[in-house]
């Protein structure tokens, strides 16, 4: 299992950067589309970064599972390969 706090931090950082706002304003319950204003291309770009950062592949069929910040983190925690440090 990858390092949980690290995953959460990385994803919230990535979102904060993409949205140009402080990481403390990114909360787990926020919906990517409705609350954070990501359109479908921005979603695809975010998930592209997530795939690269955690070396995993997110099939189109899984998009519906990724509605909120928390759900993206949870998804990555479940799929990410074990970190060499853990």
């Amino acid at each position: 299992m990858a390092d949980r706090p690290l995953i959460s931090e990385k994803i919230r950082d990535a979102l904060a950067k993409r949205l140009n706002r402080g990481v403390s304003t990114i909360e787990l319950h926020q919906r990517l589309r409705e609350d954070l204003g990501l359109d479908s291309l921005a979603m695809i770009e975010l998930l592209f970064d997530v795939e690269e950062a955690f070396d995993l592949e997110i099939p189109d069929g899984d998009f519906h599972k990724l509605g909120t910040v928390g759900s993206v983190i949870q998804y990555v925690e479940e799929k990410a390969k074990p970190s060499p440090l853990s």
Partner: protein
Amino acid sequence: MNRRVVVTGLGVVSPIGIGIGRFSKAALEGKSGITALREFDGMPLEAYRSRVAGQILDFEPRLYMEADQAERLDRAAQFALVAAREAVADSGLSLHKEAPHRVGVIVGAGMGAMVLGEREFIKLYEGRKPQRVHPSFIPTITLNSISGILAIAHGAKGPNLTISTACSSSAHAIGQALTRIRTGQADVIITVGAEASITPLAFAGFCSLRALSTSFNDTPARASRPFDQARDGFVMGEGAGALILESLVHARRRGARIYAEVAGYAGTSEAYHMVIPQEDGCEEAVTVELAMHDAHVTSDQVDYISAHGTSTTIGDVVEIRAIRRVFKADAERLLINATKSMIGHTLGAAGAISAIASVLTIESGLLHPTVNYDDPDPACHLPGISAGVQERQVSVALVNAFGFGSNNATVVLKKYK
């Protein structure tokens, strides 16, 4: 007074046939030109999410041109040359007898010379030898190389333009050719759309955009399914379509066969988003309305729409929304088909090839099927979409083409009377 403009020649290179005869027959048979992605310069194919495409597997350049010319032309330019040559021959024009500055070339091209371009990029970055970049790289990769090559091939010294607006490129090419002839700047314009971008880099880019179909990698012929419930993205295609546009006066003076009239056109920007159409369909609707206005036709006169219909989840819904918005109750009696169901999305060539299909429909009274329309999606259903051939005498047809970059175009074709 605007001059009327007509279509007097057609030519095509497509995944369902090279040449109008083969294309027309295959289209009416509902043949699919979508096949499994072939070898891709040693790339691991399994790493591509989508592995199907509308590839032209039987195109052998040396059947059409000298080996040294084939060597110097990108695949897109080769397609364009072959399609344009057919269209010119079909028109019966003897271009050497025409005043050369009255004959123009307008090309729509989406991506440019990707085949040669990628080859040279790889050579440069792998070999670290800038001095080995091929001398023909620059004159080939400039987007207007195709319109230049066609001008040289046909001695066409009039207006010479390349229009690049992604998937709407060649619909604009037709529209711009219409405008040039209408306003008296040319008598004849060789109007072409051409694309050959099924290349490792461009294809990967469309995969990363998650724009392509991924659920039918084992059943390629089923992958492109506009308006069907199971659609999951577009399928890349390649090819070229050529139309000879000519002023009516010029065509009649030489006793040309007239396929149809190009009666109007509109081009707009949604000024909205680089890849997503405005969801309510308002902007696509405006484009259609402006084109009808330009052609002096009203919505009750339109019989048939050759839809942009790419088979993406959102694009098809927005297009039908736009059609409903414009035609209201009349939308129910329109006939609609999507050429992309058979050949995939040929990007810059799509508008021209759809226009060719529409011209053939105006001539024959037969609409080709929208293949794989098995399970209508209620979100984009209209009764005039069918998986079978439909018959109707078409007086007015619309051709829609919408492109990345928030770009829309509609062309209006009429039966010549």
